[in-house]
């Protein structure tokens, strides 16, 4: 009895000590990244900064997409739709009435919208809320009956967003899209959003909600019989993912400053699917690693679409569109031969890192 008490106390001391250490290390890592960003902001050229921004946006998207696909195990194909929603709603909010007047040349902007102009941050949050609202609207009928229709419903929703953006001339300016959106997004915004997303989703996954989500992934029936309300949990995960995807869309709109319905095709969703599969379905760490690797890698892959010289005497003509074929092959091959991806379902932790250093391994909880 006494032994058990002592054991428990020792364990508690050990874990508080470790937790404090981990927290300090995490903070240090975040500060290091911020330092690097500061230097990048000062010294990197425009192209590199653009890629760094895209990396952060892809991290945000991949981590939130993994929450619904990997952690909860509900296959969905929504990111392009929610990114489009977030992009359009935030862009319309931040545009001044004058800018709107210059954009809407075929039909004037709807009167209720024309005078609205809000600062960047509220607009971004509103973009996220719009996406979350539509996620609830879709998730409600789908999760109530059959979760595996989610994929086709979200795929259809992506098409609907495109159709609506093309046709609702007075709100979205139709196929012309919106031009001259203020370039508010910089490295601080995108990486800030990426960190906030990571923080919130990691906290969620490690909470009892997260354990419930994983239980639903493993066996929904068993989870339900343990008293987990799977409908509510799935809805929570889905709308949470949508919220962050919408905000990432808002960042994207204010980064590239020109949006049109053509921009948010299924290709975006497909990229994210590759990222979360390669990183490991259900591993947030894997999503971050794969998002970074993929964003750089897909820039390199542009080479296959341009003519390549081999030693100057032989030229391979570039094949436009070949990149997409390669992506598709990568995804199918990963599913068939490498279903674990980089991380499987494991997560990075400081304890694991210390375990790698010989002698640095702490006494395992007695």
């Amino acid at each position, binding site marked *: 009895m006494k032994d058990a008490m002592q054991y428990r106390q020792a364990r508690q001391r050990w874990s508080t000590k470790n937790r404090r250490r981990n927290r300090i290390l995490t903070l240090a890592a975040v500060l290091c990244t911020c330092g690097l960003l500061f230097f990048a902001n000062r010294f990197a050229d425009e192209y590199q900064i653009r890629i760094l921004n895209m990396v952060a946006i892809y991290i945000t998207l991949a981590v939130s997409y993994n929450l619904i696909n990997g952690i909860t195990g509900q296959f969905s194909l929504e990111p392009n739709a929610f990114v489009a929603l977030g992009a359009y709603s935030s862009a319309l909010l931040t545009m001044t009435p004058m800018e709107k007047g210059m954009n809407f040349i075929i039909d004037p902007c709807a009167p209720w919208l024309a005078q609205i102009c809000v600062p960047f941050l509220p607009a971004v949050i509103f973009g996220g809320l719009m996406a979350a609202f539509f996620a609830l609207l879709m998730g409600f009928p789908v999760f109530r009956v059959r979760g595996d229709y989610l994929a086709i419903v979200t795929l*259809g929703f992506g098409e609907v967003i495109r159709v609506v953006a093309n046709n609702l001339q007075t709100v979205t300016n139709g196929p012309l899209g919106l031009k001259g959106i203020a370039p508010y997004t910089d490295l601080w915004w995108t990486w800030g959003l990426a960190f906030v997303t990571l923080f919130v989703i990691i906290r969620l996954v490690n909470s009892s909600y997260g354990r419930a989500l994983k239980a639903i992934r493993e066996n929904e029936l068993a989870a339900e019989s343990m008293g987990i309300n799977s409908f509510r949990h799935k809805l929570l995960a889905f709308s949470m993912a949508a919220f962050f995807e919408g905000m990432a869309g808002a960042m994207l709109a204010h980064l590239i400053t020109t949006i049109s319905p053509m921009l948010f095709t299924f290709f975006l969703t497909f990229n994210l699917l590759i990222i979360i599969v390669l990183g490991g379905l259900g591993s947030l760490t894997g999503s971050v690693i794969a998002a970074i690797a993929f964003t750089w890698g897909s820039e390199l892959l542009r080479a296959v679409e341009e003519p390549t010289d081999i030693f100057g005497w032989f030229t391979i003509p570039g094949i436009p569109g070949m990149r997409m074929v390669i992506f*598709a092959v990568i995804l199918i091959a990963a*599913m068939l031969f490498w279903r674990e991806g980089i991380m499987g379902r494991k997560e990075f932790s400081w304890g694991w890192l210390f375990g790698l250093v010989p002698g640095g391994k702490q006494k395992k909880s007695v």
Partner: protein
Amino acid sequence: MTFQLFLQQLINGLGLGSLYGLIAIGYTMVYGILRLINFAHGDVMMMSTYFAFFGVSIFALPWWVAALLAMILTGLLGISIDQGAYRPLRRASRISALITAIGVSFFLENAALVVFGSRPRAFYRPEMFRAIWHFGDISLLSLTGYTILITLCLLVIVYFIVYKTRMGMAMRAVSKDMHTVPLMGIDLNRVVAFTFGLGSVIAAVGGILWAMKYPQIEPLMGIIPGLKAFVAAVLGGIGNVFGAVLGGFILGITEILLVAFWPELSGYRDAFAFLLLILVLIFRPTGIMGEDLPE
């Protein structure tokens, strides 16, 4: 709107609905058996139109030979997709198979874009489908009439296969319990391959008729019909071939009538099927003729 005009639109809607129904049959059979949404189905249909197109334009075959050949090739394509991409994942989690399915779909679309080019190509419409039939004030393209007839004939054939043959009995058994069936001495893989083959051949018929209707084809033409056909399958009750065709008819007719009554909504036509899907899921998730499938 006069009654004649209404009837006219009804016939047009039936013609369009038949095409949805033909594609939906493949969806509904595969879902019924494997609980897999075969995202590549719409793209398989697209490939069938290219097979027929090249048969006519490059090999100068008579159109019906090209169509038959395209049906056979599409059937083989469906079977090889199943054997190559889905079969290794039969025992994996369902999400793996779904991800592979979307990968196959994306692969077919983009490979077609690279190989065939993105330019739409004119599709040959044979002489017998160009005539215009008149019934009183109603006139319709003979193609529409033939489409409806072919759909009904195929439905009878599929009914016969599913309910009167040994293979059909095996299919129905697999849809009830995939894990017990192999214990009864039935070759699961043959049944699944047959289902994919049959569904793809019927999709090829739908695809070729579709291509003759609009007479042009392009690599991304399969996406929207594929989505709508899935809605039709859910509407009719997934797993039920009659339901698939019935759902196709309903979807086609409502779509045409909607545009006829409210022409200003024609831009939103593609969004309507989606709305219908949501409504079905809210009010009757099992569809019109569907029985409750075990999850």
